[in-house]
């Protein structure tokens, strides 16, 4: 039945709003599924409009919660409880200096996400799962599902938690959300649990950046958007905000271009960010960026002449760094162990010159030389990279090398000069928050009682005894062998060395956040561990049928932020200048429930009260959030953002908060305050946005004070207080992990699964079994694995595999052919997009598609990137999503349809 007809029918029957939402979900389901069956139902706009009382229509700010790197305003037109349309920020006129917070394509498609055919509707259990360790775990991911009642589901979960804690201890439960979540909160109440960590998106920047004297993100290493307009040249090294930073970041690029800057993009792929600013593209082989950077450093060292050709900022190197050459090493270090002599090849006989680099990275020596000359010290240059180049094996020193080239050329700490990260959160708009989202309740409780922040804080298990399992240890070692390496508090950069080999018997996995089955390299290993390993029970709270839900034993349907009481948007730190408020705009669909309700119900069955788990309910949590939101004023002081009157306080009630404040003896949360806007104004606009103008007090230049006076303003995170081109601490920490050895200064290490490994004989250039290198760009058609099955996005973004025209010609591939990619670890298929925008030898498979294994062939049909990857660990065990080698061939099975018409994974 088409949506229009449903509306007419419902209007005439005067059925309840709740039933309508059920019905409209079905309609969306039929919309999605009908697409597959090629019997499209045209939805009749006028029929809907005719049957709704548009006078009751109201635009309401609603959530967009995806982890996209941005945060924007999203509004829904709600008529009689039904979402009719979406729009974005229109709270003020749009201008480059004070822009609207416009939503990207994903935010605009949320309606078909929230009402998608793949929403989980009922609690369910896997048919052959049995409690108490019974049943058949080998059927995970291929079993049938049985719908069960909430009581049954919650009883099972509570019973299993109780049994496992009693028989095996709290550490036998592994909560796979590496963040503060409601499930982690539950586990803390129950006495703690094991958790896990990974470098994830951040690559080598995750753990190394602080030791060498830089930040790990754009917030701390990139100037703000106004200062970027002062640049003459912006070098984007593996950066693509057009795809990886939702909302305004790509617009900042346009502003910078309009101000007169030139752009250079260094990347295996000519992406949409480079294209939009007419960047000169320097194609480079995947994972070979360090080689090119060494070639540039060599050029700078050998061609610099302070009088006739000043390239190197010797003053900056002298004052602000240690370790550049033998004369600047820390005391006691072998003078041969220095960066400059390594680059020149003084002791190893191998000059890391552009010719040497070309052999590896494929960038012609004259291009490397020319770029080195272009970034010399007297030009205003931004050297900005993303995480992708360091999501590769053996690039632990890449951030250090990138920073070293920036330090050599002095592009640090001055207006129009910067070196660091320019992607993901705060892309092209660094600096501390101006609009500061209030503490959420987790922060609040952590601050006051240390009770709930994470499994390591205040848990009855001793801080140091909480197992924190590195993700590559998780499947293969923890689940299959019952052991893991204990690196200490890796989530807080408190790595211990040497690691301690420990026993660990994991009996339960539970999560409501990370799509853990989908997001780690070498998924076949995860499936093996789940089917053959020690785990009795896998519990998943989710709102759609993600692979993590598909491979679970008990699935509990959760609601989306559209269906729960309002609040402040998650991932607030993605936007420097604005914070966002959203409302509940629809009733929960079917039997889906709030995550907080679900964990409370489990806790109740284990003898706890609601207040034990959530001392204040959602509405009062929202009040705290509003009350604690802050603005950075022009004098650098923090002041309240939201005006709160006694009337507001009365309206919220705050019965539980009062009790809580009494308990802690601090009633500051209950006091009225004067801020920049009223609660009503915030809710109407959906946003507070700090006014900005050029040269205002918020203009941010990282390391400015440090550069001006490194003695008075040392870098707190380095041992020397300076930028460390020789960093003993970093080498000690990573080497102490016991996987492989790095030097305290950047050196080239032939990577596991790098370009060289595409050859069986590199010297004579004989190609090996897996001759192509796969990169996995973040994709506009979804965000990580979120929104993977949204029909409007699938229609807009085809999720092809990009193959260079050179390689396509060699293999006889054409656009639209279904191509089989095979690595040593797994296989997947995708339709080819043959392109001139890709370095030959590189293959680009967009990141995040859901695993979809064909049970007959074992081949993934979803174009899932992690089926191909390796879970090997070297250096700091970074997750090498972009170090994957494959062979390619035309797929001889059934060709794939266009992405928009691929089947959507649904249940019930």
């Amino acid at each position, binding site marked *: 039945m088409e949506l229009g007809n449903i509306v007419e029918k419902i209007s005439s029957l005067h059925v309840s709003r709740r039933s309508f939402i059920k019905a409209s979900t079905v309609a969306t389901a039929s919309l999605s599924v009908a697409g597959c069956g090629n019997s499209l139902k045209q939805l009749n706009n006028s029929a809907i409009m005719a049957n709704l009382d548009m006078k009751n229509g109201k635009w309401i700010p609603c959530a967009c919660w995806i982890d996209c790197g941005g945060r924007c305003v999203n509004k829904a037109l709600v008529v009689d409880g039904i979402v009719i349309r979406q*729009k974005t920020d229109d709270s003020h006129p749009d201008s480059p200096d004070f822009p609207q917070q416009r*939503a990207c394509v994903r935010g*605009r498609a949320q309606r078909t996400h929230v009402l998608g055919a793949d929403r989980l509707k009922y609690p369910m259990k896997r048919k052959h799962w049995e409690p108490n360790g019974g049943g058949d775990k080998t059927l995970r991911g291929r079993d049938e599902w049985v719908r069960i009642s909430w009581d049954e589901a919650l009883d099972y979960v509570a019973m299993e938690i109780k049994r496992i804690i009693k028989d095996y201890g709290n550490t036998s439960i592994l909560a796979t959300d590496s963040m503060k979540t409601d499930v982690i909160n539950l586990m803390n109440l129950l006495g703690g649990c094991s958790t896990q960590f990974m470098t994830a998106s951040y690559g080598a920047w995750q753990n190394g950046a602080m030791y060498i004297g830089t930040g790990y993100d754009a917030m701390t290493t990139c100037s703000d958007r106004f200062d970027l307009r002062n640049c003459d040249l912006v070098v984007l090294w593996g950066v693509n905000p057009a795809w990886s930073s939702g909302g305004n970041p790509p617009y900042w690029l346009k502003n910078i271009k309009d101000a007169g800057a030139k752009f250079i993009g260094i990347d295996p792929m000519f992406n949409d960010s480079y294209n939009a600013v007419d960047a000169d593209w320097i194609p480079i082989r995947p994972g070979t960026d360090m080689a090119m950077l060494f070639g540039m450093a060599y050029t700078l060292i050998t061609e610099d002449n302070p009088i006739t050709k000043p390239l190197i900022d010797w003053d900056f190197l002298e004052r602000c760094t240690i370790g550049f050459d033998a004369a600047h090493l820390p005391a006691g270090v072998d003078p041969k162990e220095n960066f400059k002599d390594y680059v020149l090849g003084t002791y190893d006989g191998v000059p890391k010159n552009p010719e040497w680099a070309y052999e590896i990275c494929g960038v012609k020596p004259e291009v490397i030389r020319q770029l080195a000359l272009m970034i010399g010290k007297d030009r205003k240059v931004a050297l900005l990279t993303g995480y992708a180049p360091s999501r590769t094996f053996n690039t632990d020193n890449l951030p250090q090398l990138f920073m070293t080239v920036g330090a050599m050329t002095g592009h640090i700490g001055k207006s129009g000069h910067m070196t660091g990260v320019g992607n993901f959160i705060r892309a092209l708009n660094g600096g501390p928050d101006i609009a500061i989202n209030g503490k959420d309740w987790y922060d609040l409780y952590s601050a006051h009682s240390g009770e709930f922040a994470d499994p390591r804080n205040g848990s009855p298990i001793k801080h140091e005894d909480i197992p924190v399992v590195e993700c590559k240890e998780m499947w293969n070692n923890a689940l299959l062998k019952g052991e893991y390496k204990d690196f200490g508090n890796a989530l807080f950069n408190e790595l211990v060395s040497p690691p301690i080999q420990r026993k660990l018997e994991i009996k339960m996995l539970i999560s409501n956040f990370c799509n853990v089955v989908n997001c780690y390299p070498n998924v076949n290993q995860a499936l093996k561990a789940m089917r053959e390993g020690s785990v009795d029970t896998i519990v998943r709270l989710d709102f759609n049928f993600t692979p993590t839900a598909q491979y679970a034993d008990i699935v509990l349907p959760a609601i989306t932020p559209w269906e729960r009481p309002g609040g402040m948007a998650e991932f607030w730190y993605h936007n420097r200048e604005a914070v966002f408020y959203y409302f509940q705009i629809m009733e929960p669909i079917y039997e889906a429930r709030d995550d907080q309700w679900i964990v409370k119900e489990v806790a109740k069955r284990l003898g706890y009260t609601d207040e034990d788990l959530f001392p204040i309910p959602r509405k009062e949590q929202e009040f705290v959030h509003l009350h604690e939101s802050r603005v950075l004023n022009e004098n650098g002081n923090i002041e309240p953002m939201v005006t709160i009157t006694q009337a507001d306080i009365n309206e919220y009630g705050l019965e539980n908060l009062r009790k809580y404040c009494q308990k802690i003896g601090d009633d500051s949360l209950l006091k009225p305050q004067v801020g920049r806007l009223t609660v009503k104004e915030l809710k109407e606009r959906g946003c507070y946005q700090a006014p900005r103008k050029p040269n205002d007090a918020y203009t941010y230049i990282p390391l400015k004070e440090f550069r001006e006076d490194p003695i008075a303003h040392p870098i707190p995170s380095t041992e020397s207080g300076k930028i460390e081109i020789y960093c003993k601490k970093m080498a000690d920490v990573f080497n102490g992990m016991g996987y492989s050895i790095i030097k305290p200064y950047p050196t080239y290490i032939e990577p596991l699964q790098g370009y060289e490994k595409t050859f069986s004989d590199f010297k004579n250039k004989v190609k090996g079994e897996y001759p192509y290198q796969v990169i996995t760009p973040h994709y*506009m058609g979804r965000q990580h694995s979120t929104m993977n099955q949204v*029909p409007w996005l699938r*229609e807009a973004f085809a999720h092809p595999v990009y193959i260079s025209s050179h390689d396509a010609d060699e293999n006889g591939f054409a656009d639209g052919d279904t191509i089989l990619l095979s690595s040593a670890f797994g296989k997947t298929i995708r339709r080819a997009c043959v*392109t001139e*925008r890709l370095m030959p030898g590189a293959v680009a498979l967009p990141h995040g598609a859901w695993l979809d294994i064909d049970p007959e062939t074992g081949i993934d049909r979803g174009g899932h990137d992690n089926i191909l990857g390796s879970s090997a660990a070297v250096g700091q065990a970074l997750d090498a999503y972009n170090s994957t080698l494959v062979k390619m061939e035309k797929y001889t099975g059934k060709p794939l349809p266009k992405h928009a018409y691929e089947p959507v994974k649904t249940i019930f």
Partner: protein
Amino acid sequence: MGKKGFYFDMASCIGCRTCQVACKDKNILSVGTLFRQVRSFESGKFPKPGFYHYSYTCNHCSNPKCVEACPTGAMYIAEDKTVQHDDSKCIGCKYCTWNCPYGIPQYLTDLDKVGKCNMCKELTDKGENPVCVDACVMRCIEWGDVDELRAKHPDQGLVSEIAILPSSKITTPSLLINPKLAAYEPNCKQKEV
């Protein structure tokens, strides 16, 4: 006072298709039906590729072939000189879909009628912008009086035809494009992204 039309800044477009989805949302269109559609085109040879996106929609032409072809008067030039469609007169004969050289009118199978961009008439009548204009993250799409739009961008060398589009002489589209150089390359291929 000239005709009302769209301005498209191809030079800054990142191909994000937010305009396409905002249009689908406003018009409640299922997969396969697009009143605004972004397509991507590639030319040149590695390492010097030409690449651009073009956001197709109705050009509200001065000499619209869809109106000329329509046997029932369902497709018509409205008072404000935009090209509008009266659903009640449409008999689903598809003549307009065959005659529009831009391939814009969409035949809607289930309704047995045609639909297309009406420049969000119901919104512009209330003083609002078409949804695509306010949706664009790169601020690439503008609408209004084409003479005023041309005057607003004096340095951009705006054009009404590019290699992938028919000659503007056929229908005199109300269309202004700030083109990328690659848009003049006739040997280009449409690419999925």
